[in-house]
């Protein structure tokens, strides 16, 4: 029998607000953080909108000594980690260091830092490249910096599976807690809104070139034309349920089920792996589809991917068989930070008994989805399913539910 693993702390950095409360208030109001890019001059690029975290001032949240050696995404991750510990009421300095680990997801590492050092290399020469480039760009850097800052010396790692990574990291953390690690800090905080990162995202062919923040990202619409990228994410504290209860922790909910699948090669004619991921995650949770009160969709906003997701949800839950929402329509898709922020929204929906809306889209009727549109919906939420897909065929599904 696997032990139950629960979430006891959350730190959020989102385009719509810093911290859980601001993010959640914006989600309730349906406020969008998608705007014209400010971090660099994007006028010459085909896509010019993003969900930027505009009110994050690194110097207010990160020690001065870490500023010269960190990418923007790492600074936001360090802040989110601090807030997650605060939220959980844990001072890691008072916990056994080998009993705490950290697992983050990453999509491309610290691209903005890397871009700056590449510029130094080609404009000025190798001796002008920062020694910190050795790790500041690296996929595992958020895990490393958080581990060093808080003395988390237990089992740790990084997962690289694009947008699915936020769920895969939480699942890895759950495995580690089940193996005896007392606490694992996990999730994703990501950012790649710089010219180098931007062209890499554009090359994927799934970024919206829409100019109007009010309709550039329209998942499930018949005229869906790609997503708007964003930055930020969420880090969560996972603990063994009994241990959390023992210290009187406030519990957001249980990570009850998870599965990951990989798509067959393009052109194989075989069904994509998302439906199977959903079914396996439900099985892992020991639940029937009827136990799920809301689905947080991956919401690719690419017609074929939307059809695949709608079909998977329909097949498992029936036509209009479960409320579906995509609060990422307010933030953009946050790379490896997207899914852990969706898990956060799912846990807060369980806490508050309302579900955040999907904004700025009108789903095609052919999908037969009951999308929570325009305004939050009050409904009893005991369990939620979160879906995430990564470029290249990654599928992940996670069930969270009210702790027993």
């Amino acid at each position: 029998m696997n032990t139950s693993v629960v979430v006891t702390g959350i730190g959020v950095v989102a385009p719509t607000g810093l911290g859980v409360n601001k993010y959640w208030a914006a989600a309730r109001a349906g406020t969008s953080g998608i705007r014209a890019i400010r971090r660099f001059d994007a006028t010459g690029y085909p896509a010019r909108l993003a969900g930027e975290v505009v009110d994050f001032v690194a110097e207010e949240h990160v020690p001065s000594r870490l500023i010269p050696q960190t990418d923007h995404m790492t600074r936001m991750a360090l802040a989110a980690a601090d807030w997650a510990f605060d939220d959980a009421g844990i001072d890691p300095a008072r916990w056994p260091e080998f009993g705490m680990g950290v697992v983050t997801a990453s999509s491309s590492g610290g691209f903005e830092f890397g871009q700056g050092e590449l510029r130094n290399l080609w404009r000025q020469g190798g001796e002008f490249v920062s020694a910190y480039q050795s790790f500041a760009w690296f996929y595992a850097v958020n895990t490393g910096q958080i581990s060093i800052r808080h003395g988390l010396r237990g089992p740790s790692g990084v997962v690289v599976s694009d947008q699915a990574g936020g769920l895969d990291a939480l699942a890895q953390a759950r495995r580690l807690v089940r193996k005896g690690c007392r606490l694992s800090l996990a999730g994703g905080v990501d950012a790649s809104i710089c010219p180098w990162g931007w062209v890499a995202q554009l090359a994927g062919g799934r970024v919206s070139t829409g100019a109007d923040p009010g309709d550039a990202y329209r998942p499930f619409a018949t005229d869906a034309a790609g997503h708007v990228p964003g930055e930020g994410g969420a880090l969560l504290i996972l603990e063994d349920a009994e241990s959390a209860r023992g210290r009187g922790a406030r519990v957001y909910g249980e990570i009850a089920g998870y599965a990951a699948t990989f798509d067959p090669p393009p052109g194989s004619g075989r069904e994509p792996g998302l439906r199977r991921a959903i079914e396996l995650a439900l099985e892992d949770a020991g639940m029937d589809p009827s136990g799920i009160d809301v689905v947080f969709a991956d919401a690719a906003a690419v017609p074929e991917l939307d059809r695949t997701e709608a079909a998977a949800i329909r097949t498992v839950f029936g036509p209009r068989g479960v409320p579906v929402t995509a609060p990422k329509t307010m933030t953009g898709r946050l790379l490896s930070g997207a899914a852990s922020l969706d898990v956060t929204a799912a846990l807060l929906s369980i806490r508050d008994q309302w579900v955040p809306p999907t904004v700025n889209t009108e789903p095609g009727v052919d999908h037969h989805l009951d999308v929570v549109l325009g305004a939050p919906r009050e409904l009893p939420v005991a369990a939620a399913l979160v879906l995430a897909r990564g470029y290249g065929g990654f599928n992940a599904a996670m069930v969270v539910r009210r702790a027993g």
Partner: protein
Amino acid sequence: MSVREATVDGLKQILRQVAGEVDGVDLDGDILDRTFEELGYDSLALLETGARLERALGIKLDDSTLNEVQTPRQLLAAVNEKRATHPDAA
């Protein structure tokens, strides 16, 4: 650092740029004989500091220098010795 001789003030400025300041350490105090470890600067911070000094002074430190020096006084001595023997630094 625009001066052509490495001074403790110039070094402090570089240390602040490459690795900020550590809580509880006053760089404005007398740091010459405190170890970099005590001051909160790790080996990578020292590597970056060495690179900045090389660029500012037009010198090349020996590969072993940064592994050997323990304190700002020792680093400044090594740097200024290089400077003295460097043909362009006169």
